[in-house]
């Protein structure tokens, strides 16, 4: 893996893209797409750690996104917390829940783990949808203004709402990417990738497999939760769909399309799947068929995902 030496390069390229892209934006709408990519990219980066590094599949991570999102919606209303604190509370809650359910769930393997996490995600979205008196039910709940933009204005940094969220979520993504890249080539990252390939061998060299799996699970839950919080704060409105099964599947799809083990792949996968529906609107009725087709084609021709396959191709050229 040449990743270690290219770690800083990856970050640099990502930062450069985030900075330069707005100069090419024809309208404010593109800031919105950018922020969505970053928000999704953050959750997907967490899944890269869980699925790509540690090899533990989850079909329920939208559940954590839902927890993060509803923390921002409900904590200000019921606890009077500032939205930023609500976000932290959501993160802590997600981490705690991940830690609690991770212990029994992570003993399962493969599809059994998948169905267990799926069940968890469905439980969360069900509670959010059914406890209508508290959560607002399927119709959703409003989320208060974060207020940071106003704060920036007072210090003379005047950004439009769209620009602010673009920058704010972009920073989160950069931070998330930086951490994940650090992890990849660290002792802990190696331990995670090792237990992915052979649990028994990882154990015999002293890796506390249970603990590491759990760490990856909690970490990815934190990523997902933050991503959910950001989405809620950005949209100022949230519905249980954020925690839904389809959102979980979407996140996993982004992870795999981009390249499950690759951190830049997470961003690429998120970008692809976020932009595609926007591009495909011109095709009207054929949108879904083409979306499905593209997913299949990418996996057929780049079975290990966009970024790993493309970089292999590039290295082959040079």
């Amino acid at each position: 893996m040449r990743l270690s030496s290219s770690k800083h390069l990856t970050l640099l390229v990502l930062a450069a893209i985030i900075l330069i892209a707005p100069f090419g934006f024809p309208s404010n709408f593109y800031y919105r797409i950018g922020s969505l990519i970053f928000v999704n990219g953050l959750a997907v980066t967490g899944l890269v750690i869980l699925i790509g590094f540690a090899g533990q599949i989850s079909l329920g991570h939208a559940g954590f996104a839902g927890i993060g999102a509803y923390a921002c919606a409900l904590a200000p209303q019921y606890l009077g917390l500032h939205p930023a604190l609500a976000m932290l509370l959501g993160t802590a809650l997600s981490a705690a829940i991940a830690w609690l359910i991770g212990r029994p769930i992570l003993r399962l393997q493969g599809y059994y783990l998948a169905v267990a996490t799926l069940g968890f995600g469905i439980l969360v979205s069900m509670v959010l949808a059914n406890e209508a008196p508290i959560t607002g039910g399927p119709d959703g709940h409003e989320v208060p203004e974060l207020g940071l933009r106003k704060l920036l204005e007072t210090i003379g940094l005047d950004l439009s709402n769209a620009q602010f969220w673009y920058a704010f979520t972009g920073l989160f993504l950069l931070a998330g990417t930086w951490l994940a890249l650090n992890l990849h080539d660290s002792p802990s990252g190696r331990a995670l990738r090792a237990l992915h390939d052979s649990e028994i061998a990882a154990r015999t060299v002293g890796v506390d497999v249970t603990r590491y799996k759990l760490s990856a699970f909690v970490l990815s839950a934190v990523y997902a939760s933050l991503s959910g919080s950001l989405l809620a704060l950005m949209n100022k409105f949230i519905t249980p769909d954020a925690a839904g099964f389809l959102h979980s599947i979407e996140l996993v799809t982004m992870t795999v399309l981009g390249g499950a083990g690759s951190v830049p792949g997470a961003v690429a996968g998120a970008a692809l799947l976020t932009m595609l529906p926007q591009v495909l609107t011109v095709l009207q009725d054929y949108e879904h068929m083409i979306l499905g087709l593209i997913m299949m084609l990418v996996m057929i021709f780049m079975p290990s995902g966009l970024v790993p396959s493309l970089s292999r191709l590039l290295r082959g050229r040079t």
Partner: protein
Amino acid sequence: MPLLRVEGLGIDFGGLRAVDNVGFQVEPGEIVSVIGPNGAGKTTLFNMISGAYQPARGAVSLDGEIVTGMVPHLLARRGLSRTFQNLQIFQKMTVLENVMVGCHLQERASLLADLFSTPASRKRSAETRAAALKLLERVGLDCAADKEASSLSYGALKRLEIARALALEPRILLLDEPAAGCNAVETEEIDHLVADVAKSGVAILLVEHDMKLVMRISNHIVVLDRGEKIAEGRPGEVSRDPKVIEAYLGVQPKEAGGHALG
């Protein structure tokens, strides 16, 4: 006090007594070989000692501490390391990384430090890398360090497992057929390697069907058949034991050229 002591160890699979009432001990710096026909229970014995299987009966102690059925990563902390008969390689990692994972315990990783890539974490990684490269050199795989492990040939993988097991800096090393898939010359290299490691004070428990290797380097040999210990002693004694010859050796190993038997 012996480093490893095994007493009355046994396990069943379904109705089969795979291992029954096996006991022996290994001192630091000693090479003890376990031999016996296919299916005698050698690998199962290893699996029980190293915590992969829970023994049904008996006890294992390390340095006087009872460690029966202890989980492998705790055994690893107590200095027990092993290789596998059915290779357990981290296929998608590089050869070097495979060995670096072996250094896991020396790295004393803290997830937070690693996430934030603290200088200490980076320094440890660098040290591990250097140590791992040395080990690769020792097993002759240094030129393949950056290859993906899945691209190695079978024999190379066997040696990679040995390097990874050594990375743990074990006090006792369990080797399950380390020379399988190696030719006579390569086997000899492993022979030297194992002897070297033992010389540094590491206790070695060895399973191997290459009698030339076993007879040459073992201090002590334990013979299993159908899960039970049928003989035990110095190489010379054991190889003359009629029970052993009948169950396992067939004919006396010839010296020259008789690689496994000849």
